[in-house]
């Protein structure tokens, strides 16, 4: 028997038209599950974005000897900029440092007034790609002992941040995986029930001589269509929510580093469509097996 694609497609469409309740139920279930999954992806992406922005705020400070010459300091600066772990280096002169100190203690004129204009040394503020590299960078700077007097970085904060952020990211990945498993189970439950409701039809088809494939293909197309519609709607909703959120956070939480680029729209769309389609097809396939055995 030659495989009849057109027939299967027509059958699938006809069935969805005739059983709107079941089709809508499947689509709604897929939509909700994948919406939750997509929102999970969204939150994951933003939290990861914020966390990595926060991690990049960690810096190593290298204070120069009071008598270091400008050329030496420039040379060290260039060397440090060449380190692979380093993302950005800023030079802070002694005067700038005092100015900042004064600003910090501006409400305490009693402290500030006693101090001279050059009691603080020049320094390099070294931004790192990864706060875990602070130790390495500090050790390399030891080599510049002739110029650099003192190296300062918040070791304990870095350690905590490292622990917390890695746990948070693991947690988010775990939650996303959990949602995925839950979605697969929930959607395939729905599919199983809707195929269970039509088990007698499947039996009759088999009895009048239809092969397994002939019976199955329209159901698979139905599953595919429902999965794609559910997944597509979910992706649209997720992307819409994301743009709303990014816009809102720009005004409501200006100091939290949230960016649109944290979420890759095509990735979300792809994942949700693929998840919907594959659960729909595979769920239909597996649910049908027991009813085809006649």
């Amino acid at each position: 028997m030659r495989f009849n694609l057109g027939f299967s497609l027509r059958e699938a469409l006809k069935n969805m038209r005739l059983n709107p309740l079941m089709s809508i139920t499947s689509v709604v279930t897929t939509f909700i599950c994948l919406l939750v999954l997509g929102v999970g992806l969204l939150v994951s992406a933003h939290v990861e974005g914020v966390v990595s922005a926060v991690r990049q705020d960690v810096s190593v400070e290298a204070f120069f000897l009071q008598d270091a010459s400008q050329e030496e300091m420039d040379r060290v600066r260039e060397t440090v900029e060449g380190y692979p772990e380093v993302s950005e280096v800023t030079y802070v002169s002694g005067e700038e440092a005092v100015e900042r100190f004064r600003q910090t203690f501006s409400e305490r004129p009693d402290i500030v007034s006693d101090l001279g204009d050059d009691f603080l040394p020049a320094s390099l503020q070294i931004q790192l790609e990864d706060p875990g590299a602070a130790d390495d960078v500090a050790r390399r700077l030891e080599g510049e002992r002739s110029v650099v007097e003192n190296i300062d970085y918040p070791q304990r904060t870095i350690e905590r941040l490292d622990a917390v952020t890695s746990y948070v990211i693991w947690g988010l990945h775990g939650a996303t995986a959990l949602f995925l498993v839950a979605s697969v189970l929930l959607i395939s439950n729905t599919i199983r029930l809707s195929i269970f409701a039509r088990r007698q039809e499947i039996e009759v088809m088999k009895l009048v001589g239809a092969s397994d494939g002939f019976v199955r293909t329209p159901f698979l197309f139905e599953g595919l269509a429902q999965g794609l519609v559910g997944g597509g709607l979910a992706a649209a909703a997720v992307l819409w929510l994301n743009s709303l959120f990014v816009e809102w956070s720009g005004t409501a939480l200006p100091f939290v580093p949230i960016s649109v680029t944290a979420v890759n729209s095509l990735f979300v769309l792809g994942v949700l469509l693929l998840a919907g389609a594959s659960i729909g097809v595979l769920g239909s396939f597996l649910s049908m097996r027991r009813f085809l055995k006649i």
Partner: protein
Amino acid sequence: MGEAMILFDNVTKVYGRDTVALERVDLEIEAGEFVFLVGASGSGKSTIMRLILKEVEPTAGSISVNGTKLASIPRRRVPHHRRNIGCVFQDFKLLPNKTAAENVAYAMEVTGQRRRSIRIKVPQILSLVGLAEKSEKYPHELSGGQQQRVSIARAFVSQPPILIADEPTGNLDPDTSMDIMQLLDRIHRIGTTVVVATHDRDMVNALQKRVVALEDGRVVRDKVKGAYADEV
């Protein structure tokens, strides 16, 4: 004498643990024969039909159709076996989401026939059973007898070599029943092997065909030109 089209060799069918539906049935139906299966309610007529279709497996004994032992047909090839058999089911077994015409067409579609030949043949066959006007109705919009006639139309639309009909006139008035029986007779005359399970005494007596009578799962009578209730 032709070769055996349907051969039951010492077939026993037990449902569940202890419902003996057929007991040591030997039955040989030749190609091109017309056979009535008669017997009281529960005597095993439908079970014979189901065994021929390979819907259920015999508990003991073996069945051959067209020279092939059913037990040797792999699951994958069962649809091919069934496409050689047109079947009118006692409970019709129409597809609820298909119209009368679509139900009939489905039996042609499973064999991969051309859409054009389907479009020509389905209306022909539906008007043959008197349902030309009902072709676009769904089963739940048809009367019992109309559903039965759709089931009949579906069974012989692809002109299979074997036609088995389980109580095909149970929901039909005597006139329509006679039309259907004459249709079966015509189908038989073009060479089809026909097996009809029926309770219709008038029909059996009128057609004067071979009659196999069952009683509690055993063949108790087998006459070449029989009536519904011969004295044994």
